[in-house]
């Protein structure tokens, strides 16, 4: 495997750490690193840029934008749960026009790699959103959020049905530049996530983003009523990580070459590594941003360290490594003198 040594800067921590090629490919989209922000957990990057340089991670996946401005749901919109949280925001946002004028404009000026997440209430709306983005510069990819659980009608979770999921992706593909990388964001709340992945791939998705939140609920023991104004909400955070890793694993088993963005409860570099070993080409960091606003950068650095410690020559070598046969030889040991070591 080739090993391009690209400069990502020194990794803080103890002892010398090698420069490691952290780049990754999602179809034709090449990212400098595998760590992205998760949609809905980073707004449009501006706030997090106060805490770390957002151009130094793989990219920003923006909060799902809809065709029209959207107020979202009433409050309370959030409940803390064991190692996670439940949210019922309801996609509050400025609408696609203002998003393009202000948020995307800022991200482009800032030099960030931007994957725009879109959400519609009808198949047609997804198509219109894709058309709006088509002439817009600075869109590295589109994540099609067909799995937000906080819509008025649960029947509208497109990702719960292979046909509707496929209809949405097909239209987004048709209305986008043929080379535009398109990722369908899938829901874990299905019997067979592989069949949904298959449907969206056939419909023209470049890859998949797995997973969105799981539908959950909290009853307030004091009021003895549902805690969230929206009654149900999406469960996220470290609590759902094993579910997410399982979904990535299953999809990778079925599609050896499909670009997969893995997400769900990543809070450390070794958590990110788990997803990559399971088959993710890139990872998104979500809920833990609320706990630690610097976490995407920290996780990038921790992941780099974890990969070096395990003897990988590049990040890409680790992708799907957990799928190797039981009798596979250990990682080919590459002499330490091949690395460009830096010492703090």
């Amino acid at each position, binding site marked *: 495997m080739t090993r391009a040594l690209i400069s990502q800067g020194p990794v803080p921590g103890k002892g010398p750490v090698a420069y490691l090629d952290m780049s990754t490919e999602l179809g034709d989209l090449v990212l400098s690193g595998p760590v992205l922000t998760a949609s809905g*957990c*980073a*707004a449009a990057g501006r*706030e*997090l840029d*106060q*805490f770390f340089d957002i151009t130094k991670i793989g990219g920003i996946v923006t*909060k799902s934008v809809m065709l*029209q*401005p*959207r*107020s*979202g*749901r*009433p*409050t*309370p*919109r*959030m409940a*803390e749960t*064991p*190692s*996670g*949280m439940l*949210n019922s*925001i309801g996609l*509050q*946002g400025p*609408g696609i026009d203002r998003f393009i004028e202000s948020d995307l404009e800022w991200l482009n000026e800032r030099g960030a790699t931007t994957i725009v997440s879109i959400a519609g*209430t*009808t198949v047609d709306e997804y198509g219109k959103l894709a058309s709006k983005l088509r002439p817009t510069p600075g869109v590295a990819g589109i994540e099609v959020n067909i799995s937000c659980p906080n819509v*008025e009608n649960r029947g509208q979770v497109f990702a719960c049905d292979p046909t509707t999921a496929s209809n949405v992706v097909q239209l987004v593909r048709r209305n986008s530049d043929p080379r535009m990388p398109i990722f369908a964001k899938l829901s874990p709340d299905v019997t067979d996530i592989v069949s949904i992945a298959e449907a969206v791939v056939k419909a023209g998705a470049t890859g998949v983003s797995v997973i969105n939140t799981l539908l959950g609920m909290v009853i307030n023991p004091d009021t003895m009523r549902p805690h969230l*104004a929206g009654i149900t909400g999406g469960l996220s*955070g*470290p609590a759902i990580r094993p579910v997410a890793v399982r979904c990535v694993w299953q999809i990778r088993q079925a599609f050896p070459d499909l670009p997969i963005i893995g997400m769900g409860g990543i*809070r450390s570099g070794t958590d990110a590594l788990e997803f990559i070993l399971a088959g993710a080409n890139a990872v998104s960091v979500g*809920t*833990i*941003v*609320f*706990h*630690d*606003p*610097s976490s995407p950068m920290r996780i990038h650095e921790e992941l780099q360290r974890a990969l070096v410690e395990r003897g990988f020559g590049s990040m890409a070598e680790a992708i799907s490594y957990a799928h190797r046969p039981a009798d596979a030889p250990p990682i080919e040991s590459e002499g330490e003198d091949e690395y460009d070591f830096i010492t703090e």
Partner: protein
Amino acid sequence: MPVQVKGEVLDIRRAGAYHVLSLTAPGIADIARPGHFVTLGIGGEESSMVLRRAFAIHQVQSRGVYGGTLDVVIGVKGNGTKWLSERRRHDVVDIVGPLGRPFILPKERVNCVLVGGGYGSAPLFMLADQLRERGCRVDVVMGASTEEKLFGVLDLKRLASTLTITTEDGSLGERGMVTEVLPELMKRVDSAVVYACGPMPMLASVAQLATELRAYSQCAVEEAMACGIGVCMTCVLPVVGEDGVTRMLRSCTEGPVFRGDRVLWSAVGSIPPGTVGAPVEGAH
């Protein structure tokens, strides 16, 4: 601009029903203004409590050797605040701040009334200090359900021209709510501005009174937040802009201090009809 730092616990002490936590906070304490808040990480890096807790900055000190320290007042309400109340000297706490928009201070020497409900009095200390430095008269009203839940009575007494206390059970001061004594006081001192921090219903009443008495009001809200930095959209409330349009604004970045006459207090917790992006009857 907010920063994220590891703060060291210098001291934690009881104050009635509350705990006052003193932390080193280099880069935060030195730029904090009255009404700013911080969020604290709970339970360490492997914590099962993933959401930060937000606290108004109570006091800041510039202690050269520590590069600035700050105090927050903690009311134990659940496991997160309980964990904080159990911190001891030299423990490390992850701090993000200063966050939010602080209180706006008057340019002229006007009479100001400060209203604190429960530990909502915490951010009023720095505010009272700075108002007095500007030559403003400061009168303070504090209220709580019971004496134990008042915070900082003695210190506020020193900072204020007058201090009026109300408790619902009559254990200290006058029996009743702050809003029962407020109109009389505002008229007596001819107050131009009312600053308030406390529970939502109190803020709603204070804001309404201020409007009736033609005073300007600045209300610091306490909304449930997940991130505190403007990305999660959980802490929103309906606020009317200068253009007359209602929007769901974030308490963390567009507040926590709002003009009292701009917040649709009775609609907090809902999406009032006409709000930007509100669901339209018959549509989706």
